């Protein structure tokens, strides 16, 4: 039996160690050990969830910031590959859990783009109501928590009173306060309940004074201005380069809003403005959020003034569950019902991407279908994750006490970031 001899190169331990030490030195640039590494989070009240920041400090000044995400990872994208398109709707509630209705709508729109369906006019109007209510709810929290991070506790309590009313509206609309799961592929679970429109009108009338009140408490507040102005500046070019979206992008002066640039759900029919900032600091992002809430109120009023009648779901009877009354008594519909419930909606093969303007930014769903009832791959482009990526560039040079205000102004949600 012939023998084969092979030569292996023994690793040079000493050289390897030297190389490693060199690379370490280059990253820390701290030979005498004057700098301190500080862990902020993952359970820190100012990091809004489970964001961990590894900060390298030179005294009070941060020289290096390393955001560490993934503590809330649940594998939503993988879960989506194992279930029908409709079964994934409850999981979208848990992405940006401050605006579940907006996530539901964005996901449904992405799926409908794949199927090639379009929801009728009334369905679209209802979805706009959902999106804008969600936007007000998310910005109310964003502004309130931001103010609390920089020390103004009162605002948080006032905005939360209003958010509670939005939750009551959600409950009337969907049957759940928080985990709404309102949309399905091709429509909504139910039509607007009786008296919903007047309830929303009443809420908007109560909301406007509160927005003005928050405005009075914060906008011309010298302490708030000192803690937010010229902090965490993202320049226009940086914001575009890093792919920032939503109010954070508009705060930097880029007038990009998917509702205007790529209108969906008839947003082109409604008259509203895009607020943009000038410097791109924390204060500008706050101002943009405040103005966006006012614009959302404007949109909501317009939708409700011309709320069209008619069906709320697509007419394509092959893809939707048939009406319950028919399922109970008719054979044909029962068979169809079983097929849809067990096999899912038969999607055409193809790849689609749909991005919706969510409160936090562009929430995109990329769906790769190979046909059949389940997606082959579903990628979620979560705005919070991309908005957070700039932290390592943004934070160095700031004081440690400014980090909460920078984080608060970015207004991210870790449920969506880690998904």
């Amino acid at each position: 039996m012939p023998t084969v001899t092979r030569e292996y190169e023994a690793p040079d331990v000493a050289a390897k160690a030297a190389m490693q030490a060199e690379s370490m030195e280059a990253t820390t640039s701290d030979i005498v050990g004057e700098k301190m590494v500080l862990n902020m989070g993952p359970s820190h009240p100012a990091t809004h969830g489970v964001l961990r920041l590894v900060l390298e400090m030179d005294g009070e000044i941060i020289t290096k910031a390393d955001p560490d995400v993934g503590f809330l990872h649940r594998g939503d994208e993988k879960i989506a590959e194992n279930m029908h398109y409709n079964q994934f709707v409850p999981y979208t509630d848990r992405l940006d859990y401050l605006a579940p209705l907006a996530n539901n709508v964005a996901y449904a729109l992405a799926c409908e783009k794949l199927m090639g369906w379009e929801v009728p006019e009334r369905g679209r109007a209802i979805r706009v109501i959902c999106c804008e209510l969600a936007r007000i709810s998310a910005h109310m929290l964003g502004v309130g928590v931001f103010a609390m991070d920089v020390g103004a506790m009162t605002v948080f309590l006032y905005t939360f009173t209003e958010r509670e009313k939005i939750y009551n509206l959600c409950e009337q609309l969907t049957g759940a306060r928080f985990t709404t799961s309102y949309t399905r592929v091709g429509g909504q679970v139910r039509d607007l309940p009786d008296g919903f429109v007047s309830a929303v009108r009443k809420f908007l009338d109560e909301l406007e004074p509160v927005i003005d009140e928050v405005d009075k408490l914060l906008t011309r507040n010298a302490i708030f201005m000192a803690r937010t102005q010229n902090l965490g500046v993202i320049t226009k070019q940086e914001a575009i380069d890093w792919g920032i979206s939503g109010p954070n992008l508009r705060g930097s002066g880029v007038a990009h809003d998917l509702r205007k640039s790529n209108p969906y759900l008839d947003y082109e029919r409604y008259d509203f403005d895009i607020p943009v900032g000038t410097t791109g600091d924390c204060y500008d992002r706050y101002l943009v959020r405040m103005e966006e809430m006012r614009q959302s109120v404007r949109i909501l009023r317009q939708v409700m003034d011309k709320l069209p009648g008619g069906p709320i779901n697509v007419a394509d009877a092959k893809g939707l569950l048939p009406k319950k009354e028919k399922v109970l008594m008719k054979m044909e519909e029962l068979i169809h019902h079983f097929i849809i419930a067990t096999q899912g909606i038969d999607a055409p093969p193809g790849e689609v991407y749909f991005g919706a303007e969510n409160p936090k930014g562009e929430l995109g769903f990329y769906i790769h279908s190979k046909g059949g009832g389940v997606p082959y791959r579903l990628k979620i482009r979560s705005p919070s994750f991309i908005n957070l990526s700039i932290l390592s560039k943004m934070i160095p040079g700031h004081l440690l006490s400014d980090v909460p205000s920078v984080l608060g102004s970015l207004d991210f949600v870790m449920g969506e970031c880690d998904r």
Partner: protein
Amino acid sequence: MAIITVQRPKLAWHEKAFISTLFKGLKITLSHALRTFLQIAGKKPKVTMEYPEQKWDDQLPDYYRGAPALVTDEHERERCVSCQLCEFICPPKAITITPGEIPSDDPWAKVEKRPKEFEIDMIRCIYCGMCEEVCPEQAIFLRKDYAITGLSRKEMVHDKKRLYEIGGQRVGLVNKWNELK
């Protein structure tokens, strides 16, 4: 496309020195304090609710999504025919059904099947309401119970007996097994 640039205010000297802003802030706080006093006196509706004593229950809509439960109809018949559609659709896979046959001497023998065991793991349940949505027999409903608690994991798995206990009897449902066949 209208773009508005948000205005960054220039503060006057009295605002910088907190003189006018102090009064402005106090005015808002005091107005809220006054409102709270009126609420305590019962002149205005309260914002908060003292939960275990006061409950929101009567404001819940009929389609409120609470704990799922099985129902029987006015003939004391189990509505469920163990088609297992809810088990199939349940996104977190909280439902487990073991189908069983109805004995031939039963008055409802023509229904043929009912669940031998029906378990809902309430730790897994996410109250999405899909089971109610797909049920072709109107057998499972999401009830208004929202405070589901237990001292052990085993207790949180609702078995068939417990589910019928929570669900109770529901009248006015479609009775297809009476008319047809």
